């Protein structure tokens, strides 16, 4: 067993046992941590592996959330079935954004702008669909919060805690498999140099499209979780630009294109935000924006001193660099 596998096991055990000692507040923070680790990992497939910058990933969160929620609210479709529709809708949307962008050679920052545009006009669209609540929001009936109903995703907060833990562990293992697969190597080639990738027989268009669609579909599952955990959806939150930025911070801070990066990034950023809130309140700072200012400065410091992200640095410190001769290249 590699040392990275041991680290993963320890993390998993810590999260699995946390409810034994943690109160409701800490658990809700950990849910947010894992949610951002999950969607960060999904976004990382597109940016970290395939090198395609999406700044509009809330498009897929929102579509996933609204699809499953609307099916549940209006047709009584259980979340377990609704999530398939969510994944399909988001993957399709990813396919549209990707094929339009890549077909017409929209690259780099221009592609990133395109992803923002799609997220923004979908937000505006959803503000004008009366059946989905418009700007007033779509609310899910809360129901019984003591039981465990995984079919309808209704129940105890602890159920949601373990659900997002399973999702985060699942997407980690999926990505771990992906980076060692043919498709994963194809993405790395495309990320590094598209012209050279094509010269090696790689269909660059198809590789990028696969990355966007898979990333979108997986992100939509995060959206389904979001909808059923918070029980309310507003277009300006579900599709909001600031949420798109929040999604990408964890993998950037943790280390782009690494497997532990999104987890580590979320573990740092969410508690950092909470900590700054508590600290500023305790010290009596009431000035508007003081929390954001401190958060921004902290981000600045991380990016300044660890430009490759925290994980590549921590990996070297912990002696977890990929060993020689094992035939695997851990990221």
């Amino acid at each position, binding site marked *: 067993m590699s040392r990275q596998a041991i680290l993963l096991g320890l993390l998993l055990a810590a999260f699995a046992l946390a409810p034994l000692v943690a109160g409701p507040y800490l658990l809700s923070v950990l849910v947010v941590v894992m949610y951002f680790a999950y969607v960060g990992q999904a976004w990382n497939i597109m940016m970290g592996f395939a090198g395609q910058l999406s700044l509009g990933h809330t498009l897929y969160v929102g579509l996933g959330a609204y699809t499953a929620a609307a099916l549940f609210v209006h047709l009584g479709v259980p979340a377990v079935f609704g999530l398939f529709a969510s994944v399909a809708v988001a993957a399709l949307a990813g396919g549209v954004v990707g094929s339009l962008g890549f077909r017409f050679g929209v690259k780099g920052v221009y592609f990133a702008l395109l992803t923002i545009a799609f997220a923004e006009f979908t937000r505006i669209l959803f503000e004008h669909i009366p059946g989905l609540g418009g700007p007033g929001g779509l609310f899910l009936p809360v129901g019984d919060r003591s039981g465990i109903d995984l079919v309808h995703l209704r129940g105890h907060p602890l159920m949601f805690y373990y659900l997002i833990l399973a999702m985060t562990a699942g997407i980690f293992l999926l990505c771990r498999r992906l980076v*060692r*697969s*043919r498709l994963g*190597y*194809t993405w*790395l*080639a495309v990320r*590094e*140099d598209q*012209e*050279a*990738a*094509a*010269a*090696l*027989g*790689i*269909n*660059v268009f198809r590789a990028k499209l696969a990355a966007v669609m898979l990333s979108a579909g997986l992100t939509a599952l995060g959206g389904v979780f979001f909808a059923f955990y918070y029980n309310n959806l507003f277009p300006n939150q579900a599709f909001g630009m600031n949420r798109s930025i929040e999604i990408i911070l964890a993998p950037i801070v943790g280390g782009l*294109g690494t497997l532990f990066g999104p987890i580590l990034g979320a573990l740092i950023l969410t508690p950092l935000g909470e900590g700054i809130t508590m600290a500023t309140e305790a010290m009596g700072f009431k000035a508007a924006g003081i929390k954001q200012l401190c958060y921004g400065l902290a981000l600045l410091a991380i990016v300044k001193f660890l430009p490759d992200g925290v994980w590549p640095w921590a990996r070297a410190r912990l002696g977890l660099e990929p060993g*020689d001769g094992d*035939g695997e*290249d851990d990221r």
Partner: protein
Amino acid sequence: MSAAPLLLVEGLVKNFRGLRAVDGVSFSVGAGEVVALIGPNGAGKTTVFNMIAGVFQPDGGRVELEGASLVGLRPDQVCRAGVGRTFQLVKPFGNISVEENVLIGALRWTHDVGQARRRAREVLDLLGLADKRRQMARGLTLPDRKCLEVARALATGPKLLLLDEVMAGLRPAETDRMVETFRTLNRETGLTIVLIEHVMRAVMALSQRVVVINTGKPVCEGTPDEVVRDPRVLDCYLGQETP
């Protein structure tokens, strides 16, 4: 030589905004041959390569591999048809290991990553990069990057290998070693090679036939010994010996 040559280039034309970069270049390469394409800077050699490899579409003429046209195919399709190429300005995948660079080439013909990795190690052995396989490609020296460029193209298992100035910047000893590698490959696997090269030492040692072009037009064609004595070549490229 059999009925259809491995590579047929005929009457190739390419214009860049009114500049005729390539004007009626024709040559053919039989299976197992090593042919050099030489000429002064700006003669259109790389443009010819790019038209064979699918990067540029020709404005006229034919490109055929074993009788099947390559015109209209994308670079990845040309590669899958059996043409491997290197870039004059090397394009390593910098942030992944040397071995992974080559492994990606081998994934052209296999879906099995383990098999691709084994092939990558064989190719790296062959090119003398085996001890650097775990390094990040961005850390390699220029000669090693050139080697990596060749290794990656070779790993795709091409019938035809297009080498764009892979000897440029190598020391004479390194050039000789690379020449020897290509001779061995050509002899043992029947690999067909077309190379663009300014290093005449390599051209003379490696190629069986030389095609000379200048300002996009064909100048002459022949064995290396014939070509270096041809007055037209001396005039436009190699220069006259001082009497």
